[in-house]
């Protein structure tokens, strides 16, 4: 892209078009100040829009409008405005004395000889003209949609432009989807996962707390949308359930029922629950000892109603205080209520799940009714993740550099992530480790959370790509931007998102921060995924409906 006309097509030919205004100040770190042309209405602008700035040297800059302000050449104007009914004066003042200012965060720059914009390292000179970016400009920046680029949404006011996410980069590091309740996190995550699965870039292990991912998801409006298992009927997605009854009654296809043998549970699996089960430090500290003394059947023995000589002896020998033991036994009663826990050695579920993942099938783990029990969610997520991760580490080490033998990249999806990654536990849980070790073992996290401030700072700073719906809590907003340079300016943008289906995407998988209206998760999306035309299925459903109605 060396010749001039090509460059003009890159960021649009600007001749004869009135600029929005011109650069009058600012800095690389704090953003540029752009004085708005008095002929333009400030009301037409919006934060989150893009601008192209024509540098003096031929370099072009791409920036994001992060704030819009009213300013005046004379600061006294706020105290001495023209009379309210004086339209003439108002018009005169707004030509000269009063004007609009834009804060623009410079994001990318493009030299005449470059063919791709690069991150910004300087600012345009004084008085450089600033234009609104055209659809073509934005399109160029976000690249074309292809095998490894997922169309995630459209920039505000640019319905025709696709913002495409680099999927390889997205799964390369841990990423996050944030936003307060009801802003569209689960819908967005489903789109992301569908994109990843379709592109075959990685397998996903999804801890599906609220039955949002596998099958027939209830939308807020009441009607159902398809789950991943329906969208990928060809084996790319397996549903593993903890609660067969609920899954079946929802009509979900189930590929496997997960039962965990009590003998498979280790003290480390219980440790994360200590807060939720109310285990004191002393009690938690006693677990490894009990496991060692009682053997693999330790939980069964602790829960057993028949007297246990060895336990009694331990108390007698003062190896454990009787009240501590009693408290542990009482608190372990929780395990009895978990129907997916079965006494005994359990089965090969972990191996099976690992095999599925490694063969390219993503696994949706449905919690069914246990999704309402946070302790069950944390227990199972932690239990499975620890073991799957272990296998990944082993396989990765065995591959010693031979790419072909490496395990297939894995994305582990957890909701309510702050429960796993809060500063008190993140240091020593498998999730904290995965976030920190980056992609060393081809495993990364996709965390979905409405309270990012609850997540350990160090973990947060490792999150490569952040997709953020509306957040209104100050601390949460701060957390989402931790470790992001020039974040101050983006806060305004984030705080102004719509309450639903809009998101700010920043980080590793996009060339620059971008606000999108998330694409619709609808029939068109299903079709794009290549999900078979569901005329047949609709007929089926109609038939089922009439059967139910008429009892045929």
């Amino acid at each position, binding site marked *: 892209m060396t010749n001039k006309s090509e460059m003009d097509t890159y960021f649009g030919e600007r001749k004869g078009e009135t600029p929005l205004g011109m650069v009058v100040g600012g800095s690389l770190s704090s953003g540029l100040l752009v004085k708005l042309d008095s002929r333009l209405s400030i009301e037409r602008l919006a934060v989150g829009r893009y601008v192209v700035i024509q540098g003096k040297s031929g370099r072009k800059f791409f920036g994001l409008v992060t704030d819009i302000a009213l300013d005046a*050449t*004379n600061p*006294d*104007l706020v105290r*001495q405005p*023209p009379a309210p009914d*004086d339209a*003439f*004066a108002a*018009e*005169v*003042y707004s*030509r*000269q*004395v009063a004007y609009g200012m834009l804060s623009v965060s410079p994001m990318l720059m493009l030299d005449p000889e470059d063919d791709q914009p690069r991150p910004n390292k300087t600012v345009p000179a004084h008085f450089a003209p600033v234009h609104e970016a055209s659809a073509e400009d934005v399109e160029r920046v976000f690249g074309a949609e292809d095998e490894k680029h997922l169309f995630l949404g459209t920039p505000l006011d640019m319905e025709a432009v696709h913002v495409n996410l680099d999927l390889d980069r997205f799964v390369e590091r841990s990423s996050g989807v944030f936003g307060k309740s009801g802003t569209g996190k689960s819908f967005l995550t489903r789109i992301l996962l569908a994109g990843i699965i379709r592109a075959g870039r990685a397998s996903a292990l999804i801890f599906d707390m609220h039955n949002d991912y596998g099958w027939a998801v209830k939308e807020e409006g009441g009607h159902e949308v398809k789950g991943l298992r329906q969208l990928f009927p060809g084996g790319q997605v397996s549903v593993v359930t903890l609660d067969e009854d609920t899954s079946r009654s929802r009509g979900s296809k189930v590929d496997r029922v997960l039962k965990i043998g009590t003998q498979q549970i280790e003290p480390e699996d219980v440790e994360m629950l200590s807060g939720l089960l109310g285990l004191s430090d002393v009690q938690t500290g006693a677990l490894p000892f009990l496991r060692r003394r009682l053997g693999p059947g330790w939980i069964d023995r602790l829960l057993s109603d028949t007297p246990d000589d060895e336990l009694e002896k331990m108390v007698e020998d003062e190896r454990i205080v009787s009240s501590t033991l009693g408290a542990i036994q009482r608190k372990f009663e929780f395990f009895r209520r978990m129907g997916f826990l079965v006494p005994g050695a359990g089965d090969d579920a972990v191996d099976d799940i690992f095999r599925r993942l490694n063969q390219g099938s993503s696994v949706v783990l449905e919690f069914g009714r246990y999704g309402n029990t946070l302790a069950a969610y944390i227990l199972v997520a932690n239990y499975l993740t620890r073991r799957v991760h272990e296998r990944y580490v082993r396989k990765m080490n065995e591959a010693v550099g031979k790419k072909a033998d490496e395990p297939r990249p894995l994305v582990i999806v957890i909701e309510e992530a702050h429960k796993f990654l809060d500063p008190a536990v993140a240091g020593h849980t498998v999730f904290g480790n995965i976030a920190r070790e980056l992609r060393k073992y081809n495993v990364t996290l996709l965390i979905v959370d409405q309270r990012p401030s609850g997540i350990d700072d160090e973990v947060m700073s490792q999150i490569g790509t952040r997709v953020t719906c509306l957040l209104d809590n100050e601390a949460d907003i701060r957390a989402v931007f931790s470790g992001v340079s020039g974040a101050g300016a983006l806060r305004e943008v984030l705080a102004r998102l719509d309450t639903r289906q809009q998101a700010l995407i920043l980080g590793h998988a996009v060339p620059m921060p971008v606000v999108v209206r998330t694409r619709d998760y609808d029939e068109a999306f299903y079709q794009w995924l290549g999900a078979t035309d569901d005329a047949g299925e609709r007929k089926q459903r109609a038939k089922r409906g009439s059967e139910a109605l008429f009892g045929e």
Partner: protein
Amino acid sequence: MTSDDKAIGRVTRCSTRGFVGAVRLPEPEWPVFGTFCRAEAQQGHSQVIGLIYDLSIEDDELARQLAATESLSPEQLADSQVNRQVPVEYRALAVGYRHGERFVQSLPPQPPLTLAPIHRLSDADVRKFTAQLDFLKLVIAVQEIPVDDLLAAALQTAAAARPESERRAYLVEAAAECARLVGRDLTRLESLVRSLRP
């Protein structure tokens, strides 16, 4: 406005900053405050454009006599005020010059010639000259004359020389230029803008 051709006096004193003109005219024909006028300079190569800002009436023998008259009849008074050729002196601020067909809005290179005839600028020339607003800063820079009143009068004159449909836009533009020049003093700007309201 009266016809372009008829002179409204001759230059009696001058500098590059402006000139003084004098004339004997009956009251209805006196030039008014804020009138644009022109006087030849540089042996006719250029014309200085002036903006009239100060009119004074010399006292003369007859006026003094009449004033001393015990009882002035209304007829006498009217005759003297309206019909009598009174010596009028006025000052004009140089706000530009004309070189050939071109108007330049800066101080003229030379003052007009003494006794050069002074003419009103025709409406067409007022429009042409005031299409640029650079002369405003020449006016504002002057001390010790009622600058703001002069600006208002001049710009209203310039607006009046334009078709009705263009007047408001012109005044907005002119007032905005004033705002740029005196925007630091909002009280001043406020009254200036008020006096420019169409």
